[in-house]
């Protein structure tokens, strides 16, 4: 265990950008978890006499059209945005890894049929598909999660399938088979854990993408509803005041989105470089 930690520390020292991104992502997760207790103001309490104030020492990111403290809303929104992205990616990871692994392991007709379905799903403009799903299922947060999970699914199926496919005839799989493990047990107990490190990269990259997608949906008015603090909605509401010069309503939620996506993307890129140096670009 000590050796593992030392090795991890050595890897992190050699990759300062990845370390910084990991720290940023971790900080964001901690802020999101603690958000109900650390907001300086009530994120939904309006105070019209204090509306549209530019950033100041009391209100670090200014106030919005109802006098709500934008900084507090950003912190409260982190919780919702990260929760949406994490549940969506978790869902599609779980489903995609299992479906993809079995396809890659079995091959044959089932594999080809699923492959074709994945192709069709990916030929779809995915953001449009997500819009249609949310609109059809109803404007609720859980439906944003389902829609984001579905548009992420083809990537995981494809990825898990390819990774399992190159390992299906490896010596240790043969050994497990010879030892009497059934197909399900070989896939779930040996192959899946083996491809997990590589899939972790995909998860990190997808988290960023999921955050952008969910924010894009709520920017369009789909999903999360207005008084709830959420980065996409905050941008949509602030958009009305951009032409009168109140830049802080849009800029700060935009910055929050950018930072979140940046951290997860850099983390994913860094992890990929560490795990597979040949992919370095």
């Amino acid at each position, binding site marked *: 265990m000590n050796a593992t930690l030392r090795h991890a520390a050595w890897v992190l020292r050699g990759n300062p950008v990845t370390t910084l991104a990991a720290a940023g992502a971790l900080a964001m997760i901690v802020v999101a978890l603690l958000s109900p207790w650390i907001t300086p103001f009530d994120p939904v309490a309006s105070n019209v006499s204090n509306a549209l104030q530019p950033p100041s020492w009391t209100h670090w990111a200014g106030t919005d059209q109802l006098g709500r403290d934008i900084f507090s809303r950003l912190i409260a929104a982190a919780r919702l945005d990260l929760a949406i992205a994490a549940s969506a990616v978790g869902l599609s990871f779980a489903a995609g890894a299992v479906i993809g692994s079995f396809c890659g392991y079995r091959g044959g007709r089932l594999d080809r049929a699923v492959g074709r379905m994945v192709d*069709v799903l990916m*030929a779809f*403009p995915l953001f449009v598909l997500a819009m*249609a799903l949310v*609109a059809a299922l109803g404007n609720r947060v859980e439906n944003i999660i389902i829609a984001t999970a579905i548009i992420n699914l083809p990537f995981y199926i494809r990825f898990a399938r390819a990774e399992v496919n190159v390992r299906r005839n490896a010596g240790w799989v043969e050994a497990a088979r010879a030892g009497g493990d059934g197909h399900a047990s070989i896939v779930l107990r040996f192959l899946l854990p083996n491809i997990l490190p590589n899939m972790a990269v995909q998860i990190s990259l997808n988290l960023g993408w999921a955050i952008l997608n969910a924010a894009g949906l709520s*920017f369009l008015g789909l999903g999360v509803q207005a008084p709830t603090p959420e980065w996409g909605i905050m*941008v949509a509401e602030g958009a009305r005041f951009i*032409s009168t010069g109140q830049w802080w309503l849009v800029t700060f939620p935009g910055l929050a*989105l950018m*930072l979140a996506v940046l951290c997860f993307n850099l983390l994913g890129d860094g992890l990929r470089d560490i795990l597979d140096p040949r992919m370095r670009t």
Partner: protein
Amino acid sequence: MALLHSIGRRVGKRLVASLPALLGVVVFTFLLMRVLPGDPAAFFASGPNAGQEEIDELRRQLGLDRPIPEQLVRYLYDIATGHLGRSITTGQPVVRDLADRLPASLELSLCGLALALVLALPLGIAAALRPGSPVDHGVRFLCTLGVCVPTFVSGLLLIYAFYVVAGIAPDPTGRIDIFAAPPPDITGFLLIDFLLVGDLAGWRAAAAQLLLPAITMALFVLAPLARMTRASLMAVLGSDFIRTARSIGLASWRVVMVYALRNALLPVLTIVGIVFSTMLGANVLVEKVFSWPGIGSYALDALVASDYAPVQGFVLLIAAIFVVVNLTIDVLYGIADPRVSIE
């Protein structure tokens, strides 16, 4: 001639191969729109307290009282004969609505793509020529940022910078100023129509309206294009024939621009195809920010009103464009690298 022939054959094969995927898309959208909740008949009845008979009558008119398989067969027949149904919100046939709005979206996406290529190719080449240099790091930084800023945020910030603060951009709503006269509708592409009638002032105004949304689009897709150019060119620059070309004393611009670049273009072309179809989806967001009267905003309005036909038409159109884009890329492949055509 042989080249043209083989390109033609490959395109034909690709077209046939894409038919099942297109059919899949149609069936999928149909099921999605019909099976999931949200009753358009109830939505379009005269009011919340419309009688059951009125709703039933509407359902009969819309063909919603038939079994779902029958509705699907009818729908497929309609598509095959070019009828995409009627939008309930605009009251027009969907084909006409889409045809009216498609040029606006295409003009925006194509200009955005052209702008992105003009920026991304030199950036990628500069980065590939000096890997590890400050230029390379700068390009990497720009790309990393580009992927992280959502299009709707960069669009709004551009509006703030160039319309509100600097005051050099026109009012960011729509394709032309509301007080300006639109050109005669020849192709639907304003930039082309204004040129055709020789109205240079109109052309400049339309171009000014287009600039900010096109830049927003370009920023969105800059990163994948520049990254792929860099990676692909670097791989080619390391190969034997480049070493040979250098060793026999060819000018270095000639080695890079003629021999290396042409060989590095194939992966870039692939990415261009993928990027263009992502742009079609992102159009919805950019069109909303700039009140652009394209197919994206049309589909969004229809979606919110649970108006099935326009949404299905929109998705079908996007899928068809996607197929056409892939075919074009295939043809360009054959031109860029004749080796591809020899199977």
